[in-house]
């Protein structure tokens, strides 16, 4: 910990958060906001004179509220940087200034303000960690009602030698040492109803650790652990579990249904013991809830800023679950620790090293070659309407609408989604490697024979196409008349491709992409959504059944969903008769004739 604060090549910014990210791999521009500390970090010697005189007392969040601190405080004795700070919301204000007078080094500054810092980097490691599960919704265990029910994190602080009780076990209600302690496992984990459906990985071992700590200090203490099954899968874990059992800790299979408090503060736990099949009551003087973990609270904000993807559980989705466990799908971004999923310290450290190695591998050459899949403007066709610049999620296009100068694409900033090409009404943008001509040729070929039998599907490279691959890897079966055209982003799917497909006799068309919020190109799929809605309205007006055009969001992890959507598309296709297709062709032919005559 201290090394991170001392290293000459590490610039540490505490009390800081990322507020915006621009650019791309090799060249990210990141804006940070550093909140004011009101104590000069470098000057403060952590003597603590200021806190002695401060009159304001607040619960200490580091000790999960089990002790108190002042408005000027240090989070914990070994904190890095080793400096006090003032919480201005709690401070009595400048009128008091007792701390100011007490500081010999004069490092308190009430006039400090938040600072904005811009840094330029080539790569980013996301290591935002975990948030402990908040057990308040699990009211059956009485956490909000009974003081002697604590979380495992509160328990950590109670038995910690540096904690509020100096490591001696007491229960909160009467500060007496409990003679018996119960642990309830899987609180906020492995449940469809509350918390996450996943296993939090660390709570079984953390409870076993707790029982060993207790037995070491208080050999006579009675301990009961209520569990579904004990997950002691890591190296050396089974040994600890066996040691705990041999010391007399009782492991009872079954999660309690309810907890009651007896007049003397004892907790009465009602549980169906799975081994005996009977309802049992256990009286314990204190209860510890083995809380699971959730992704850190800012995850969604950061995910949107960096254009990353999340698993259904809310943790970051890696590029490949086996072969690229610390890479994000976005080049230049890596994950480490619990941000990627629940894990223990050893695994978090391993991933930290892995992420560093991956970042070094990317950066060491000093240059990076960019994919040439970018858009290009044909200046002669451009009418300077400005639409492309408006839709580009990367602000990669500049158009001077007033001066009527043609659009210019900054190819280094262009990520290649193709939204601009799809939105330009004047055919002035060529999307390299996914040109109109190339895609139209694929449509023509697939509809050349037996068009009425085919299901034309557009799938984006990152989510839906990957979801289709995942269906394959899982050997899921779906109708064999599906034909996929891959684009980088669903935003590339041009209105004219859809009309063209219907003109060529397509019974149905599916556009598929990443879920809203998960788009690999920030929010390009919002344009897809708008466009599909618009086309469907036009279909309705022209007397073509709008259902024949479908839009589905399918993620890379949703192989099952992909297969299901294909079954649904086949059902839909069967509902489209040869007459209906013939009628559509007639409508579209008349329309194009009229347009020609109209000029």
């Amino acid at each position: 910990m201290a090394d991170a604060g001392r290293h000459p090549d590490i610039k540490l910014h505490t009390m800081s958060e990322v507020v915006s990210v621009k650019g791309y791999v090799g060249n990210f521009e990141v804006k940070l906001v550093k909140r004011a500390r009101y104590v000069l970090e470098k000057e403060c010697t952590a003597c603590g004179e200021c806190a002695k005189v401060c009159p304001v007392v607040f619960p200490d969040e580091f000790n999960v509220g089990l002790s108190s601190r002042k408005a000027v405080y240090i989070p914990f004795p070994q904190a890095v940087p080793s400096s006090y700070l003032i919480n201005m919301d709690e401070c009595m204000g400048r009128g008091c200034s007792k701390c100011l007078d007490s500081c010999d080094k004069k490092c308190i500054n009430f006039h400090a303000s938040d600072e904005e810092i811009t840094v330029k980097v080539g790569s980013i490691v996301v290591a935002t960690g975990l948030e402990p599960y908040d057990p308040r919704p699990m009211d059956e265990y009485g956490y909000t009602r009974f003081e002697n029910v604590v979380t495992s994190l509160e328990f950590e602080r109670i038995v910690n030698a540096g904690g509020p009780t100096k490591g001696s076990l007491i229960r909160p209600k009467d500060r007496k040492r409990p003679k018996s302690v119960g642990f309830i496992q899987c609180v906020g984990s492995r449940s469809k109803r509350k918390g996450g459906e996943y296993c939090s990985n660390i709570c079984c071992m953390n409870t076993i650790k707790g029982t060993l700590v207790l037995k070491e200090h208080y050999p006579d203490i009675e301990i009961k652990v209520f569990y579904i099954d004990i997950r002691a899968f890591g190296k050396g874990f089974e040994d600890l579990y066996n040691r705990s059992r041999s010391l007399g800790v009782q492991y009872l299979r079954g999660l309690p249904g309810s907890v009651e408090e007896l007049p003397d503060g004892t907790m009465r736990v009602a549980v169906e013991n799975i081994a005996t099949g009977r309802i049992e009551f256990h009286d314990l003087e204190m209860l510890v809830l083995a809380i699971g973990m959730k992704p850190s609270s800012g995850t969604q904000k950061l995910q949107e800023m960096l254009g990353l993807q999340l698993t259904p559980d809310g943790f970051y989705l890696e590029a490949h679950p086996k072969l690229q466990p610390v890479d994000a799908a976005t080049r230049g971004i890596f994950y480490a620790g619990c941000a990627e999923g629940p894990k223990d310290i050893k695994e978090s450290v391993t991933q930290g090293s892995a992420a560093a190695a991956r970042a070094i591998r990317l950066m060491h050459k000093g240059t990076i070659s960019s994919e040439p899949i970018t858009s290009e403007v044909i200046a002669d066709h451009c009418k300077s309407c400005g639409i492309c610049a408006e839709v580009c999620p990367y602000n990669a296009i500049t158009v001077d609408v007033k001066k009527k100068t043609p659009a210019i694409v900054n190819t280094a900033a262009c990520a290649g989604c193709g939204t601009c090409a799809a939105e330009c009404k004047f055919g002035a943008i060529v999307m390299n490697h996914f040109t109109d001509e190339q895609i139209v040729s694929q449509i023509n070929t697939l509809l050349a024979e037996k068009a009425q039998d085919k299901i034309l599907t557009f799938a984006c490279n990152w989510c839906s196409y990957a979801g289709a691959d995942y269906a394959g890897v899982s050997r899921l079966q779906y109708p064999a008349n599906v034909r996929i055209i891959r684009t980088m982003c669903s935003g590339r799917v041009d209105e004219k491709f859809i009309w063209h497909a219907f003109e060529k006799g397509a019974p149905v068309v599916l556009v598929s992409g990443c879920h809203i919020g998960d788009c690999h190109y920030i929010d390009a799929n919002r344009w897809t959504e708008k466009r599909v809605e618009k086309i469907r309205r036009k279909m309705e007006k022209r007397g073509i059944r709008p259902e024949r055009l479908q839009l589905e969001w399918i993620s890379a992890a949703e192989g099952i969903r992909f297969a299901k959507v294909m079954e649904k598309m086949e059902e839909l296709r069967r509902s489209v008769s040869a007459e209906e297709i013939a009628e559509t062709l007639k409508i579209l032919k008349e329309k194009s004739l009229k347009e020609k005559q109209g000029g």
Partner: protein
Amino acid sequence: MTEISIATKMSDTRQTARIGVYVCRCGLNIAKTVDCKKVAEDISGTDDVIVSKDITYACSEPGQMEIQEDILEHGLDRVVVASCSPRLHEPTFRRMMLKAGLNPYLLEMANLREQCSWVHIHEPEAATQKAEDLVKMSVARVRLLSPLTEQVLPMIKKTLVIGAGVAGIQAALDLADNGYEVFLVEKNPSVGGTMAQLDKTFPTMDCSI
């Protein structure tokens, strides 16, 4: 061809193409369901297709050598590999193109494994028909591909690490010890994260900080 206005560059006037098509059997992964030989034969009559054959493992060293030799011998300028997902092996075959002296973007892949043989295991005929369609689509597309060149951009040799728990600290130290400048950003007043709150930790049962 169509009545729609399509965006095309003026410079896009191409001569006829010389296309090689390789239908990979992937051992039996594809060949068990798709009749690869038939697909290759049926494609061989298509315009501009000079070579069309099935191949055991296109991605293997001998497989790639065979394709490279054909490129030289028949003067091929575009290649269709019908095999597994491009998400898996597109980089492999792009490198192969480079080695054979062709622009890597004149390659097209048809996904006959993840999106065909594996998902229509019980319908060999329909799967073969689909494979043929997919290869034809790839041939149509490869004919129209343009060579592209990658841009070389500068790389800033610095890293931003967001979050200073054990994971972030470890990443920052490893990077810094290798001479890379690191910005370590932490929302709280101290580094350490969750671990700083723990006293003894499993499996070693010693102190965490």
